[in-house]
């Protein structure tokens, strides 16, 4: 999101799920939409039936490829090369949207254009493995559409140069005027029910709720007034920084609510070591997760079915969550736990209901000021929604960008930090499966799901499997510079030769034993979950 915020002044899906039906071309890059955002994929299939075209760029033959007009199977980590080559074609063929660039953007200058010169389709073919004609065809198909939307997920962001990837995606949309209109846009599909909301609500170290910077004196004053407290203007630590600081002993205590970084963060060995070094680890969760097991104190919390409030989905739609069942045992609503703790820390927050908290959010952030529980009742509202009469905003930027003009960013191609070599000859990429969710705390406890998706595996191309004499089900030891895991072989044509895939849901064969916690993206501090190098041996 840091990338998009730089370009536009706000970081979120620019357009809506329903608008996908109205688009002419969908460009899906680094997103296994059919498995990870199944309902968004249904809209894409619907759009296809209505005549829209579909371009997919993904290193794996993901299920949505079946519906694609063009599929570009680029090597993991070469997105910038591919996107810049598409822009190269668009620039060379004079297909840029000159009016949009002149009136709505800045930074489309000689330096930007000169940088693109080197990214010929021929050069890109060598690096990405995508035939140059396919790149040219995709570029033309995208640019010739009246309305074209780009959809991406972690395949773009989870890289040591993830922010560069996002800049490239944004450049492509800016260059072709595909922003501020229905059916277009730059659309990061968010992976968890309330990632958008957690970020909106200021659970990020640099921003108060509503992307209002903690280091801006006016913002600090505003929140000191609202919260009646002295606040720090020092930007806080990101999650990876916290773990590093814990390991060094600079960070003494962590309070973790509803997360399982031991399994979800890269380099599990390092994560465990860091958490064990803390003087105090408090974990609030609904299950004894791998992270909770390391805690000094575990607080039993509430599941979605036991509480009231709101979630904000990937298209900025704030929707009502309603309690359906009672809490088990002495488990408590998360909000009540926080309030009880805060009271004992001499900062009472005596809210009577989640609605009262919601009303305060509206006072803290103008983009949600026009929302109320009663207005959300039917089908929610999409921010920004500044007044009680405002209908919400299906697509952003129709009247310009929050930061004034959309900014082009010159992006050079940086190879991923880890490159295959003799010792580690395979590129490992990680991700989710349709049947599982994240670290499996919930899905692995659902019997029918466990019955069809019981254990981890490594997806490997038939050629590679043949070379290593592996059969379906052969146990293999997969080793990276961080560690080793043992998983079963699954021979599949999804990845190309030299690329393997392991889902990260399974703690007993955790993909994140292998991924790297260093070499983070310099801006967003996101780890490179999508590119590590490994070797594979029969176990």
């Amino acid at each position, binding site marked *: 999101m840091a990338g998009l915020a730089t370009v536009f002044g706000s970081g979120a899906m620019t357009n809506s799920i329903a608008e996908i039906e109205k688009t002419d071309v969908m460009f899906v890059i680094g997103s296994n939409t059919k498995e990870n955002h199944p309902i968004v994929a249904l809209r894409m299939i619907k759009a296809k039936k209505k005549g829209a075209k579909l371009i997919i760029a993904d290193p794996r033959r993901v299920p949505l490829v079946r519906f694609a007009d063009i599929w570009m199977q680029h090597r993991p980590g070469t997105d910038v090369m591919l996107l810049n080559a598409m822009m190269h074609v668009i620039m060379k063929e004079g297909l840029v949207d000159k009016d949009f660039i002149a009136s709505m953007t800045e930074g489309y200058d000689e330096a930007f254009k000169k940088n693109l010169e080197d990214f010929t389709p021929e050069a890109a073919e060598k690096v990405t493995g995508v035939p140059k004609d396919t790149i040219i065809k995709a570029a033309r198909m995208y640019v010739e559409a009246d309305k074209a939307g780009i959809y991406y997920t972690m395949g773009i962001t989870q890289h040591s140069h993830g922010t560069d990837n996002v800049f490239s995606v944004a450049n492509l949309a800016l260059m072709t005027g595909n922003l501020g209109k229905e059916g277009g846009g730059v659309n990061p599909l968010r992976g968890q029910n309330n990632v958008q909301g957690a970020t909106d609500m200021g659970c990020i170290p640099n921003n108060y709720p509503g992307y209002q910077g*903690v280091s801006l004196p006016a913002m600090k004053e505003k929140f000191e007034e609202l919260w009646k407290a002295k606040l720090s203007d020092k930007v806080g630590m990101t999650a990876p920084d916290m773990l590093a600081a814990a390991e060094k002993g600079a960070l003494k205590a962590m309070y973790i609510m509803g997360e399982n970084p031991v399994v979800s*963060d890269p380099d599990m060995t390092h994560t465990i070591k860091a958490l064990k070094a803390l003087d105090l680890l408090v974990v609030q969760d609904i299950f004894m997760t791998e992270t909770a097991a390391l805690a000094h104190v575990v607080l039993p919390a509430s*599941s979605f*079915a036991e509480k009231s409030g*709101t979630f904000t989905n990937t298209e900025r739609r704030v929707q009502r969550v309603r309690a359906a069942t009672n809490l088990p045992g002495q488990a408590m609503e998360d909000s009540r736990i926080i309030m009880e703790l805060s009271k004992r820390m001499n900062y009472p927050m005596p809210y009577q209901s989640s609605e009262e908290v919601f009303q305060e959010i509206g006072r803290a952030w103008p983009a949600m000021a026009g929302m109320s529980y009663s207005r959300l009742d039917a089908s929610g509202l999409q921010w920004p929604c500044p007044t009680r009469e405002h209908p919400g905003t299906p697509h952003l930027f129709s009247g310009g960008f929050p930061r004034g003009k959309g900014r082009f960013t010159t992006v050079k191609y940086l190879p991923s930090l880890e490159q295959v070599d003799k010792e580690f000859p395979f590129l490992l990429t990680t991700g989710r499966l349709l049947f599982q969710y994240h670290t499996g705390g919930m899905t692995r406890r*659902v019997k029918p799901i466990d019955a069809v998706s019981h254990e981890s595996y490594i997806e490997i191309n038939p050629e590679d499997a043949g070379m290593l004499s592996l059969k379906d089900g052969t146990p293999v030891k997969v080793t990276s510079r961080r560690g080793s895991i043992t998983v079963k072989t699954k021979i599949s044509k999804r990845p190309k030769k030299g690329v393997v895939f392991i889902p990260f849901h399974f703690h007993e064969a955790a993909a994140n034993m292998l991924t790297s916690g260093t070499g983070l993206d310099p801006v967003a501090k996101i780890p490179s979950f999508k590119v590590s190098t490994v070797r594979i041996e029969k176990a």
Partner: protein
Amino acid sequence: MIKIIINGKQIKVQPDTTILDAARRNDIYIPTICDDPRLEPYGGCRLCLVQIKGMPRLVSACTTPVTEGMEVETTNDQIERQRRTIVELLLSDHPNDCMVCEKAGDCTLQELAYFYDLRANRFYGERRQYTKKDLNPFIQRDMEKCILCGKCVRVCEEVQGVGAIDISSRGFTAKVTPPFEKDLDCEFCGQCVSLCPTGALMGKEALGRGRQKDVRKVETICPYCGCGCNLTLHVNRDEVVSVSSRPDTVNEGWLCVKGRFGYNFIKSPDRLKTPLIKKDGVFVEASWDEAFQYVADRLIAIKEKNGPDAIAGLSSARCTNEENYLFQKFIRAGIGTNNVDHCARY
């Protein structure tokens, strides 16, 4: 706009509308089994037969587009007689086991039988007898209850883009089946279950857990990915027994396997039920008071000794906006540091 007359009432509708759509928009009831506004018109069940002035035979309202000046009658003796016969024929080869059927109270066929007061049946004959192939863990398929409306086949192909099932064979032996009559092996989204008008397709997790009349429905949002699908939780005796979804929302009533069938973790015996404090490396149950006081005392001591920046909070992309707001407010205003993040913010 086109002007038409339905049951003597003049109405205006968009061109390219079917008679069924026009009637629905004007609150005129036409019974149907095989139609769903989210699927292509099919014309399979023939229940929506209507009379058009000047046409010799009845036509199906779901497949006939409106034309200027069209005069439609949706009910009269002849129409109702035909509809009644259709339902009677469907029932003649249906296991009338409503008393134990999971779908009772929520079944379109049952409703129609009630509406047409079908106690006895004029038609007797051979019945379909099928062996269940039902090893898949999600969906119970009882093809003897199938009335071949084709909704499941169509939603799987048209909406889900999977095509895991189709109608094989013809006439009396026609039946919905996966390839080569094997067991179902698909994405298990359950779209088919949600559209099935009878008890032919049921979610296995819901079996035997209560009739619809005992169920309390709670509207909420799915706890999994970021699509934000609307869920209707069906709650009985404090348990979520099944999940459905309204068609008038962002997800149009469609769900994936996790949203539709992934709810039994809620009452998992593994749920944490009491606060735990680790003593000598082992978790010991504690009261809330003890746990709160322990955490607060430790946090205050660390804050005093090492400053607020020695404390950090990781919030959750799974919690609500209100909880996240409170969490960061607590970290920022209560503890005094901006060390707050969540793992999925990228």
